[in-house]
């Protein structure tokens, strides 16, 4: 294990890949690994990319990464796709859009399944980001699953959150709703070569005018991967945002928020593990479900009873 950690800190991709697998599989060695690397983290700029499916998140990440490589920055990418709740399997297709980067030693791409977690991320994502950070990547990009309106967990984790949208997804009322539109530090209107792009940009800008008290002016950037326009604007916006975070002390606040949500998530995971441990429950769930089905008890009382039993 010590050898793997040493190799990781040197930035060796095979060791990084192996450690990510251990984290994904909830290996009992994970706490030891994370303890050893924690002090080596905090240097990477963590960028979250979210948006509805098919808006071009992976393509955008590919383009951003190529631009960062030209500036000599190393990049780690985690692309998350949904795990089937029926089979437990997943088709992980994010890296297809960036396979040209596969052989670049300054880029590491990993695909992950959500493995049953809602919110657009996966439960091991905090640890995976720390591993990429500790491996010395300058930029770490996390791509969420193609989310709907309310999967906003990414904003608690990233330093900079990019929300990707495309023309034609709805009128101005959609932009005024709460949820995903509230978490953007940068808006990208992708496929800006398509009709209606100017209108989408305008609607977002109008929506953002109402946030006039914020210190950070959220940019809305039209981007076309076909025409190859908008990427340098996106990079500038990311860099400006990082400057803003550093100058205003917001970076410290955001990282605190990240550690807080990570800590809470870990506690939840451990409590769940403890409470739902088969050996402790010994068929209680099954028999309670029967009792509820027979209308002899209601679900709330049953839950209370089981918890009391465990905590006693």
């Amino acid at each position, binding site marked *: 294990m010590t050898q793997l950690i040493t190799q990781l800190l040197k930035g060796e991709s*095979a060791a*990084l890949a192996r450690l990510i697998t251990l984290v994904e599989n909830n290996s009992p060695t994970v706490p030891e690994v994370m303890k050893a690397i924690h002090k080596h983290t905090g240097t990477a700029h963590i960028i979250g990319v979210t948006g509805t499916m098919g808006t071009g998140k992976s393509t955008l990440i590919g383009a951003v990464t190529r631009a960062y490589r030209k500036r000599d920055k190393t990049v780690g990418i985690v692309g998350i796709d949904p795990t089937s709740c029926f089979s437990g399997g997943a088709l992980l297709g994010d890296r297809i859009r960036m*396979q040209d980067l*596969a052989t670049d030693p300054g880029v*590491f791409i*990993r*695909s992950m399944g959500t493995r049953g977690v809602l919110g657009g991320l996966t439960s091991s994502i905090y640890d995976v980001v720390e591993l990429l950070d500790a491996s010395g990547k300058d930029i770490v990009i996390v791509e969420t699953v193609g989310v709907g309106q309310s999967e906003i967990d990414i904003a608690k984790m990233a330093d900079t959150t990019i929300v990707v949208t495309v023309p034609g997804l709805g009128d101005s009322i959609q932009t005024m709703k709460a949820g995903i539109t509230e978490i953007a530090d940068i808006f990208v209107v992708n496929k800006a070569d398509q009709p209606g792009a100017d209108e989408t940009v305008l609607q977002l800008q109008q929506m953002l005018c109402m946030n006039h008290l914020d210190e950070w002016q959220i940019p809305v950037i039209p981007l076309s991967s076909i025409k190859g326009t908008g990427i340098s604007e996106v990079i500038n916006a990311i860099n400006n945002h990082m400057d803003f975070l550093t100058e205003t002390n917001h970076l410290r606040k955001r990282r605190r928020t990240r550690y807080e949500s990570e800590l809470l998530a870990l506690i939840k995971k451990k409590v769940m593990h403890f409470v739902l441990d088969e050996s402790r429950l010994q068929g209680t769930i099954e028999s309670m479900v029967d009792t509820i089905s027979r209308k002899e008890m209601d679900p709330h009382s049953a839950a209370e009873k089981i918890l009391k039993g465990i905590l006693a």
Partner: protein
Amino acid sequence: MTKKNIRVLVAKPGLDGHDRGAKVVSRALRDAGMEVIYTGLHQTPKQIVETAVQEDVDVIGLSLLSGAHLTLFQNVMNCLKKRGMEHILVTGGGIIPQEDLDELKKIGIKRVFGPGTPIDTIVDYIQGSVNK
């Protein structure tokens, strides 16, 4: 919770534009509970091997219909060796003549699935080999 998911890289080496089969197999492996990463078309052996390293897969399934399997599969195996990744199970699929099977076995392609192979055969073989 601690159950290990089998991770499979489905890869299309070389200049071959047909990936219907690769997609069908990917989907079937997904439905069998595996995590499947598909590379997309036109991959070099080096791209495939680096992807396998980064994704830490248990299996690489090479799909090829162009006739260049002897050269390309050999190159993939060489790259794997160079990266010290010989533990990864490599299988082949596509249009591969009977008389080449021995040669492929010799270079380390553990199994070749030709046209008409029942999907279950592939799933069973992978599950059986990885969990061994």
